[in-house]
């Protein structure tokens, strides 16, 4: 398809007609600044094709403010050797005339022809929108939408496939996609995505399984019911047979018989026990008799033994008797020696005593001498002491009073001075013949008086002058002095002295005396600490002791030279003592032994006598004879009993009492068991009967059959759904496989064209398209690795470039399918850098070899090297 001429009038900016002729078969470049009319031209072409001439929604086509205009577009183009002319007016003059090689198609007819030629739709109502644009929507890029490719390809999809399908022959299907959707929907109601049953199919499976379970349950119960019926029949038979046989009665009878037999045997056993007892008694008697006879024989031997014993005892006694005299002699000697030793000891003790007393007397004599001297001296001291004490008595002076006196005297002296100082001084200086009396005393000449108290000076012929000493002090001092003087006098009288000096002389005398007394007292104490009396008493006592010792010593013998010492005498006595004791013990033992021997002898004699008497008894012979006879009788009895026992034992063994007992037990038990079984059977019968009646009422087999039916239906339904699911699954898979195959066949040439352009931009790059033929991934080789970039993640500029390449590739495909291609680019590739733009120009130039391209731009400089002359839109309007 090649556009030859375009004319527009009363259309937006083109109030006046604008005509472009001689359009090139390749690239046509239209330049001009903004609002110069480039977009108006594009809009004119779009309106001519997309908008229905009858449409009233195309007000935008009218020039601004000119509602009376009739926007008109005229297009001349060539297609497959035919000349097409389209004249289309809108709004005020709604008209469409399409002339194809002289044949006119007017109105809707013309429009339908156009839409099927290019592959787009008209809007049912209102202005045409992107979704109606089909293939032109893909090839005609509006300003600012160059990077968009998904939506345009989507809207063009059906037309593209229909158009390209021609090449693929019978592969495409007009109903394929719809069928796939329907099959998938139907399938999803039965199977999940992974092919597991769902919805009514899953329900059918569950129903079947549930019924299967119920059925097998009820079939189990039917089986159980039948088993019970059989058991019931069996029990009834058994019961009838048991009632007929009455086995337990037979057993009871047999048990009774066995019991009778057993009782008989038990009686034998009793007899046996009795005889056994008798036998044992008989054997005991035999033993006793034998013992008696043996006893008789034993006594004779015993007598001989007793005789021997007696003789032995007599010998022993005699031996002891012989040893007696020697013992007694030894004892007497020992007694003598002991007496001698005792006497020697006593003498030694007396010598010892005498020596001790002599020593004591010497000591006493020495003491007596010293004590006598001490006494004499003590007596002397004592008399001095007494004398001094008397002296002291007479001195009798209290040192404290003396001290007081001293104090008073000095105080008085002090007061006198004080009085002198403060008392009123009355000085007289009388003429020689004159006198006055002072307090009655005559005063003449010159004198001075101290007045302590008021004084009266009588002057003859004058009267009396009363002088009153001033102040209290004078009076007080006088009073104090008086008091002290009184005390002084009292003290002196107490001390019986006249002056203080005298008192002090006497006090010193007293002190000397006191010291003498103390010294003498100390000396006396040393000589006679306990007093003179005690010392003289002691002296007397010592004298008495000395006298006593003298008399005592007189009583004791004098010591000769050869007398033994005390210790040796003691030792000698001690050994004599020991010898004596040993001799006495020996004597005693012998006496003891002798008396023991005597006792033994007596006993032996008695025993011998008793035995001898017994043996000599008169009935002894008779008794022995009797015993011998009894023994013979007993032996006969023993034999007969033995025989009897043996015989009866055989009898009992043959009767087998243990087995008889077992028989009784066994038969009784059998009878019990038979009865028990009968009872048990009756119980079971009743139980089973009851159970069967209950189960029978449920109609188990009928239920089972009904469930069977239900199951049959459930299985049928499940099978139907299974078949349907399987068939749908198969259809789903196969339809998709076919479509995929188709897509692949469409993809392949598109891919080829894409890569053709892409090589001009990126060597060794490839652009993959998805099953909807939309570019998906750009694969580039960089730095030896493969870089994969998703289309929507590419930069704006790259997306625009890829989108344009895709559009050109589609155009190539359409061309191959024999479809018209016209490419319109309004302000394309404005986001490409210089290098990419350069490459894209090569792409466009290459595409223009096959397609007509109308390129509008406001950047003429960018497109100078496109190899075509630009047309300035402003100039066109001229």
């Amino acid at each position, binding site marked *: 398809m090649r556009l030859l001429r375009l004319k527009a009038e009363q259309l937006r900016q083109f109030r006046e007609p604008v005509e472009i002729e001689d359009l090139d078969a390749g690239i046509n470049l239209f330049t001009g600044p903004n609002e110069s009319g480039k977009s108006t031209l594009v809009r004119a072409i779009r309106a001519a094709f997309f908008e229905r001439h009858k449409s009233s929604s195309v007000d935008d086509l009218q020039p601004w403010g000119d509602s009376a205009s009739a926007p008109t577009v005229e297009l001349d183009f060539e297609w497959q050797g035919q000349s097409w002319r389209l004249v289309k007016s809108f709004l005020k003059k709604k008209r469409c005339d399409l002339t194809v090689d002289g044949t006119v198609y007017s109105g809707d007819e013309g429009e339908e022809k156009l839409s099927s030629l290019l592959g787009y739709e008209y809007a049912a109502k209102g202005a045409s929108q992107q979704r109606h644009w089909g293939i032109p929507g893909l090839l005609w890029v509006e300003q600012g939408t160059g990077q968009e490719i998904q939506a345009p390809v989507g809207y063009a999809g059906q037309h593209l496939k229909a158009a390209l*399908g021609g090449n693929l022959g*019978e*592969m*495409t*299907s*007009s*109903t*394929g996609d*719809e*069928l796939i959707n*329907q*099959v998938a929907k*139907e399938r999803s109601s039965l199977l999940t995505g992974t092919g597991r049953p769902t919805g009514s199919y899953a329900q059918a499976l569950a129903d079947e399984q549930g019924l299967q379970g119920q059925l097998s349950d009820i079939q189990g119960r*039917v089986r159980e*019911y*039948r088993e*019970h*019926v*059989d058991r*019931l*029949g069996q*029990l*009834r038979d058994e019961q009838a047979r048991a009632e007929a046989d009455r086995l337990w009665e037979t057993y009871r009878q047999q048990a009774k018989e066995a019991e009778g037999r057993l009782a008989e045997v038990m009686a034998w056993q009793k007899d046996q026990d009795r005889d056994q007892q008798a036998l044992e008694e008989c054997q005991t008697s035999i033993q006793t008799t034998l013992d008696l006879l043996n006893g008789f024989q034993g006594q004779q031997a015993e007598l001989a033994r007793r005789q021997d014993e007696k003789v032995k005892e007599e010998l022993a006694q005699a031996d002891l008797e012989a040893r007696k005299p020697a013992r007694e002699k030894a004892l007497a000697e020992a007694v003598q020696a002991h007496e001698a030793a005792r006497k020697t000891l006593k003498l030694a003790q007396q010598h010892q005593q005498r020596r001790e007393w002599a020593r004591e007397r010497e000591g006493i004599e020495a003491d007596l001498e010293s004590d006598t001297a001490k006494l004499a001296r003590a007596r002397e001291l004592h008399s001095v002491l007494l004398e001094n004490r008397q002296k002291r008595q007479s001195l009798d002076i209290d040192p404290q009073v003396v001290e007081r006196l001293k104090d008073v005297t000095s105080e008085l002296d002090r007061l006198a001075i004080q009085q002198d100082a403060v008392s009123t001084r009355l000085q007289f200086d009388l003429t020689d013949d004159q006198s006055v009396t002072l307090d009655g005393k005559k005063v003449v000449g010159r004198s001075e008086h101290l007045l302590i108290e008021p004084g009266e000076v009588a002057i003859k012929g004058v009267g009396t002058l009363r002088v009153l000493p001033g102040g209290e002090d004078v009076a007080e001092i006088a009073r104090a002095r008086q008091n002290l003087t009184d005390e002084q006098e009292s003290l002196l009288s107490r001390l019986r002295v006249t002056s203080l000096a005298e008192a002090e002389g006497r006090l010193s005398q007293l002190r000397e005396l006191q010291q003498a007394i103390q010294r003498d007292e100390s000396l006396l104490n040393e000589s006679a600490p306990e007093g003179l009396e005690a010392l003289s008493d002691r002296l007397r006592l010592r004298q008495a002791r000395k006298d006593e010792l003298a008399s005592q010593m007189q009583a004791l013998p004098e010591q000769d030279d050869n007398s033994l010492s005390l210790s040796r005498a003691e030792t000698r006595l001690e050994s004599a003592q020991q010898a004596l004791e040993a001799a006495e013990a020996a004597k005693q033992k012998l006496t003891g032994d002798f008396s023991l021997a005597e006792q033994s002898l007596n006993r032996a004699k008695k025993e011998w006598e008793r035995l001898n008497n017994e043996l000599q008894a008169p009935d002894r012979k008779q008794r022995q004879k009797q015993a011998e006879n009894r023994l013979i009788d007993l032996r006969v009895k023993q034999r007969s009993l033995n025989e009897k026992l043996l015989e009866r034992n055989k009898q009992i063994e043959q009767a087998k009492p243990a087995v008889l007992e077992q028989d009784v037990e066994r038969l009784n038990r059998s009878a019990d068991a038979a009865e028990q079984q009968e009872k048990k059977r009756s119980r079971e019968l009743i139980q*089973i*009967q009851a159970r*069967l*009646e209950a*189960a*029978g*009422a*449920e*109609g*188990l*087999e*009928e*239920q089972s*059959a*009904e469930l*069977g*039916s239900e*199951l*049959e*239906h459930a299985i049928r339904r499940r099978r139907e759904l299974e*078949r*349907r699911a*399987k*068939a*749908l699954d*198969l*259809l789903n898979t*196969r*339809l998709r496989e*076919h*479509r995929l*195959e*188709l897509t692949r066949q469409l993809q392949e040439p598109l891919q080829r064209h894409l890569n053709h352009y892409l090589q001009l931009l990126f060597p060794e790059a490839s652009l993959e398209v998805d099953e909807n033929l939309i570019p998906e991934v750009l694969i580039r080789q960089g730095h030896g690795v493969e870089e994969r970039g998703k289309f929507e993640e590419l930069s704006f500029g790259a997306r625009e470039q890829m989108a344009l390449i895709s559009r050109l590739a589609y155009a190539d495909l359409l061309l191959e399918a024999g479809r018209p291609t016209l490419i319109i680019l309004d302000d394309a590739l404005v986001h490409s850098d210089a290098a990419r733009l350069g490459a894209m120009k090569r792409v466009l130039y290459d595409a223009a070899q096959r397609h007509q391209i109308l390129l509008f731009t406001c950047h003429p400089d960018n497109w100078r090297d496109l190899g075509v002359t630009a047309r300035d839109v402003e100039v066109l309007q001229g």
Partner: protein
Amino acid sequence: MPRFLHTADWQIGRQYSKFAPDDAVALAEARLTAVERIAELADQEAVDAVLVAGDVFDAQTVSDRTIRRLFNAMAAYTGPWLLISGNHDAALAESVWTRAQRLGAVPDNAHLALAPDVLEFIEAGFVVLPAPLTQRHTQPDLTNWFDRAETPAGLVCIGLAHGSIQGVLAEDVDSPNPIAADRAATAQLDYLALGDWHGTKRINARTWYSGTPEQDRFKGNDPGNVLLVDIPEAGAEPRVDVRAIGQHPWIQMTERLTVSSDLDQLVTKLKQQPEKAVVALRLEGEISLLGKQQLEDTLSVAEARFRSLGYDLSDLRLLATEEDIAALHADGYVGQLINELRDEQEGDDGEAARDAMAILASMLLEKQARGGGE
């Protein structure tokens, strides 16, 4: 001149699991209706007794309601009913019979012959020797005792037994319970009424199987009858009248479809079948996708007409003809898939392929119907 109605194998309580629920219920009901019809016939024909030769019940544990309904269905005939137990309802220690007695459902005129004892009907002039089954299966011939039984002279003597006649019905017998073929002769019976075989069958002049009164399986051995038996006098040969009484004939059909006109013939054949029939239809051959749609319509019509219509199309191959594909607008790969599936019908997964093809065809037809409506 005693007159009897001989029947057997009522099999009350039988369920028809292979059928659709409402059909199954109706068929089960029909067995009770058959008893009602027998009672009416017995009343009309004024018979001296109705002889029921075993398998009265289908199972031992039918519901109480079923037991009561059976005896209620017998109400129209007030004369004696003589029933013996068969292998399905053997007189075991506990059985459907003991239950019926416990329920008090058994009317006085129904004689349950559950033990081998002579039953005398002196006034009516006959005696009955019953051979009821007391076990599910027995090996000995239960009618042996007939030979030794003492019966009053001059009375008509009837044997009543359930089992298979030896040497005659080697196959297709329900149980091994054997009966000597010459029993009627050896026991000097005037008539031996037998049950167990579901078709009406004459063994000899005095020995008959009545068959079941209501057909219950696809087997054309003349079921659905009762026998009206007249015995002029003791020793005389009986006159046996076969009376149809069943409602639902069971019909099995196998048809082959090759050309489109075969479908028309099928329609005609189906129309010829009685209305209350239970039909099992099996189709072979091949049919086009469009023809299949037509066939389904036809079967749908037929289903409404019969008591029950079951069909088996597993041997019917689906054809996708050029016309089919064109008519279905199955262009492009869809058409190609149809052809693939058609060829795969023969393979291992043929069923899935055939089903898939049918689904595809129906979807396309539906789509077309929608398209046409636009």
